[in-house]
């Protein structure tokens, strides 16, 4: 009964197709590309974008946008580094604090958006400036993190084969993905997110707690951004207020390439995972090719994004005409 090839599923099918095509092409072009190591690296090196993009998925599904996440990532890195380096706090506690601050920050924006019925674009734009400012207030200089806990985390991982280990950042990314998948499809909160994004006015009349859902969505996004920042520190072992400039745009691009409609209501967490992987695959492919700089990746992402929004437009416009009365 359940159909896979529906209009609604078309964007995500397109995403799958692009990912397979990209990966296939690179595998044919380069030896060693099709390997478990490349795949685990893909997960590990894009973990911070991935975690942030998954949080962003819920925001976009609800018809909103969160521009503050890049700044929150930057803030988190310097916040954790300062607490550990200058105040000698245990990293675990520092991370916990950072996650709390990120969540609270998101919740605050959600409250503004809901209570004053403000456009998410503007509220989170304000949040973007504010969080970046907070990062510079914490410390203007870059700060290294030297702690046994960090060395331990970086060495940790799940061995998949003798040689290939799924590193901690990749593990976090996968864990966040699984939790988000369950949240989106098997919790009332998740379904409410889809409902709010599909039609907020109807949702209200159907008894969906629209306000509460919205605030939770931005809280979740704030949490994911902070977690993305923590993942970032695992990779760089340092904090810097300028980290992750413009990351919010990468995350939005990954979500949209993943087939989520910017107008809300339609999309999948799994799509976002693929969006992030497409994003990473392009970069890895370019690296394999030689020492081309990442400007090619930017252009490829730009072109893909354009293609996807055109597809979405074509898909969303057609049914709207059928139902105009």
């Amino acid at each position, binding site marked *: 009964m359940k159909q896979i090839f529906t209009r609604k599923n078309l964007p995500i099918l397109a995403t799958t197709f692009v990912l397979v095509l990209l990966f296939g092409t690179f595998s044919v072009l380069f030896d060693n590309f099709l390997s478990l190591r490349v795949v685990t690296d893909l997960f590990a090196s894009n973990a911070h974008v991935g975690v942030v993009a998954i949080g962003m998925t819920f925001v976009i599904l609800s018809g909103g946008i969160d521009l503050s996440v890049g700044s929150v990532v930057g803030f988190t890195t310097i916040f954790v580094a300062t607490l550990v380096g200058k105040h000698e706090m245990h990293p675990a506690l520092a991370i916990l604090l950072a996650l709390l601050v990120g969540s609270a920050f998101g919740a605050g924006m959600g409250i503004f958006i809901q209570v004053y019925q403000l456009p998410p674009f503007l509220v989170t734009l304000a949040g973007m400036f504010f969080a970046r400012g907070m990062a510079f207030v914490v410390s203007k200089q870059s700060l290294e993190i030297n702690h046994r806990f960090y060395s331990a985390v970086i060495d940790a991982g799940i061995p998949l084969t003798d040689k290939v280990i799924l590193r901690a950042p990749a593990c976090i990314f996968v864990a966040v993905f699984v939790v988000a998948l369950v949240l989106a499809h098997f919790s009332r909160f998740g*379904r409410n997110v889809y409902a709010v994004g599909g039609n907020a006015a109807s949702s209200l009349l159907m008894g*969906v707690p629209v306000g509460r859902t919205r605030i939770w969505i931005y809280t979740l996004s704030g949490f994911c951004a902070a977690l993305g920042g923590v993942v970032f520190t695992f990779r760089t072992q340092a904090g810097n207020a300028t980290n992750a400039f413009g990351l919010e745009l990468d995350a939005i691009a990954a979500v949209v390439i993943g087939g989520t409609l910017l107008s809300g209501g339609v999309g999948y967490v799994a799509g976002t995972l693929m969006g992030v992987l497409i994003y990473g695959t392009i970069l890895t492919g370019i690296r394999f090719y030689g020492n081309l700089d990442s400007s090619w990746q930017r252009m490829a992402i730009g072109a893909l994004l354009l293609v996807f929004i055109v597809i979405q437009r074509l898909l969303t416009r057609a049914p709207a005409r059928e139902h105009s009365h």
Partner: protein
Amino acid sequence: MSGISKAFRGVQALKGVDFTVRAGEIHALMGENGAGKSTLIKVLTGVHPRDCGEVLLAGQSVSPQAPREAEELGISTVYQEINLIPELSVAENIMLGRQPRRFGFIDWKELHARARRALQRLEIDLNLHLSVSSCSLALQQMVAIARALDVNAKLLILDEPTSSLDEHEVAELFKVMRRLREQGLGLVFVTHFMDQVYAVSDRITVLRNGELVGEFKTAELPKLQLVGKMLGRELSAVEKVGDTMTLSADENTTRDPFLAAKQLGRKGGVEPLDLEIRKGEVVGLAGLLGSGRTETARLLFGADRRTSGSITLDGRAAALSSPAKAIGAGIAFCSEDRKSEGIVPSLSVRENIILAMQAGRGILRLLPRRKQEELAAHYINALRIKTPSPETPIQNLSGGNQQKVLLARWLCLQPKLIILDEPTRGIDVGAKAEIEKLVDSLRREGMAILFISSELEEVVRASQRVLVLRDRKKVGELSGEQINEDRIMEMIASHE
């Protein structure tokens, strides 16, 4: 459930209205625009708090504060504009907000089973996985009803459920309504389609101006009386009004029509009808709210696409597929909603007058200022628009004068046919008389006019010919001496 009674007093929108629905009946709630139907429904469902009065549900006093509370009490509503989430599946829409859970996770199997049961109650077979947006409006309505019923509803309110359904779909809906009645549900059916009320309801409550006119058994209330009660005038009380303007009717009928529409209709909008308008003739469209008056006008003007029929102008076939083409062909349309579709409040009287004309010329060929001022002065004088100066923002003018400015806007295009949809709504009596005079003088100048008004008196006074519409069908045509309010009311009420 013994039934619901409610009463409130001293509200501006509703003045001490009693309303009783018994279990196992379909109760029609009727009234013209502003009668208080929707307010009553909204109070009942907790959207608006009531000022005073009491709601009894199965003998228990209840006062829901929100639609959700009302639903929990067993009062469910399906609104005219169907409130569903278009991209979610049928099953999810039925179960949203009350998904069954196991260990905290949504139990999709159970969810689908329950949704299926809800649809089975309506005896509807529908793929639960389909997204609602891919279903027809009629099916969407069924989904909305299934959703409403899932909450163990005792009372189901259907607010204008048939307004976007075609005949066959309406029949399907009625089947479902009767089925639910047999199951002991109380149904409130808000509508302005008279035939439908007689087809399906057991009782009728009529409201007018926020007051209760009465509750009647459908079988014991002839249609004509119902119309009288809705319009607030008994047949005997209808006065014969001026027939001075209908004298020229006979000479008109001999002339060729300027516009002739044959079998003009739109699926789900207006059923095919014939319409002719001659030069120098005012044709009135009479009917109750929702009878298809504005819809007909919009079809003529190309604002809605017709699905059947043809239109000829001056004997030649005309496509009139868009308002721009209609304007090009010499048709003007003064819409009923002055505020949102007509005036540009902050622009001056002069600018409002030349708006349509300038639009026709394009932005590059600006009308010379002197010419603009001449035109403005001419129409301010000719239509006796009361304004301190042509440069006064139109929002500072009274409703009647705003209406005249709108008229002037179309007149400077020198249309051959002008459609006036409710030109006198919301303006005072004196201004109404002036507008009517104006219509008559335009007619004398040889313009063809389609005149729409919900006030029968006005239609009778202004028109040489009147088309009577009911339930989106043309039910008759009167001309010359035949035109009077009694006849029109009879036609609105009669069965064919």
